[in-house]
């Protein structure tokens, strides 16, 4: 008996990319997932990445930054609440089958609601983490269905994590 192959365009992936290096890794991955229905979540302040994505037909969500520079604690708390609030509506609106994170802090509230709504969560710890665990990584290790690291030395520190190479290799190929 043969099962008809599924149309991958029916599978929606929400790439949670934040900004800077996390966004750079997302851009390299995104090219390899063209057969899927891809959406991207960025920080509102990452104009460079926003510009790059505006030329494609990928749907982009933006979120205000989670941590401001040198701000007082109550402001940070306020931002976190705001972020959780915004995340709820982003998950609702995007309604993805899969959340694919390249490691930014803003994935935490997204993953929280995604878990609640029974979405699958894939986390890729940043390529800049060789030996040290990030705060986001520690939280996502508990929330993600599969947890990738990009250095073998870090794989030893996360039981059950998967090392499958590093995203910088995709740049050479493309």
């Amino acid at each position, binding site marked *: 008996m043969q099962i008809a192959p599924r149309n991958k365009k029916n599978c929606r992936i929400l790439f949670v990319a934040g900004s800077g290096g996390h966004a750079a890794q997302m851009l390299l991955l995104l090219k390899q997932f063209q057969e899927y229905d891809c959406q991207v979540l960025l920080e509102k302040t990452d104009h460079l990445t926003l510009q790059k994505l505006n030329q494609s037909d990928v749907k982009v969500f933006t979120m205000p930054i989670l941590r401001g520079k040198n701000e007082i604690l109550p402001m940070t708390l306020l931002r976190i609440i705001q972020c959780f609030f915004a995340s709820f509506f982003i998950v609702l609106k995007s309604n993805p089958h899969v959340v694919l994170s390249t490691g930014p802090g803003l994935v935490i509230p997204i993953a929280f609601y995604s878990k609640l709504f029974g979405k699958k969560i*894939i986390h890729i710890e940043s*390529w*800049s983490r*060789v030996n040290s665990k990030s705060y986001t990584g520690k939280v996502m290790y508990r929330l993600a269905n599969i947890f990738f690291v990009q250095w073998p030395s870090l794989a030893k520190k996360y039981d059950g994590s998967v090392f499958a190479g590093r995203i*910088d290799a995709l740049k050479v190929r493309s």
Partner: protein
Amino acid sequence: MILVTVGTTAFDSLIEAVDQISIPGQQIVLQIADGKYIPKNYEHYRFLENYDQWVARADIVITHGGAGTLFELLSRGKKIIAINNFDRKDQHQTDLISQLAMDNHLIWCKDFNQLSKDILEIPQKQFSKYQPVGCDLVNEIKMFIDQNVNY
């Protein structure tokens, strides 16, 4: 020519340190991003247009520890002096730089007082070539989706 880049995040103390160095006969060009310190002695830009061509021309690149910048420079076989961005709150850049320095792919400058010495010494230094590890991440993710996601 020496190219100095802080990527997209300000790293004023590096720009200031380079601005105070004098190396006779060397052209120095700086990308300072949104930094507040404006160099007085050298050619500088917020963001270099034709960054790729500047990198191609550079004999030495002095850079912050951003992974994207480092992997790019390594894949192009540049001579690199890397400095972790002290001006950032989170200090994760040392994690990658220390590994790459240990594997002899670049010089890790931990102190601005060392910078001129590093610049003078780097032309004679032999580095080992950086080879990106094969990346099977895309296939692994697609396999996971195929086996675990109903759509």
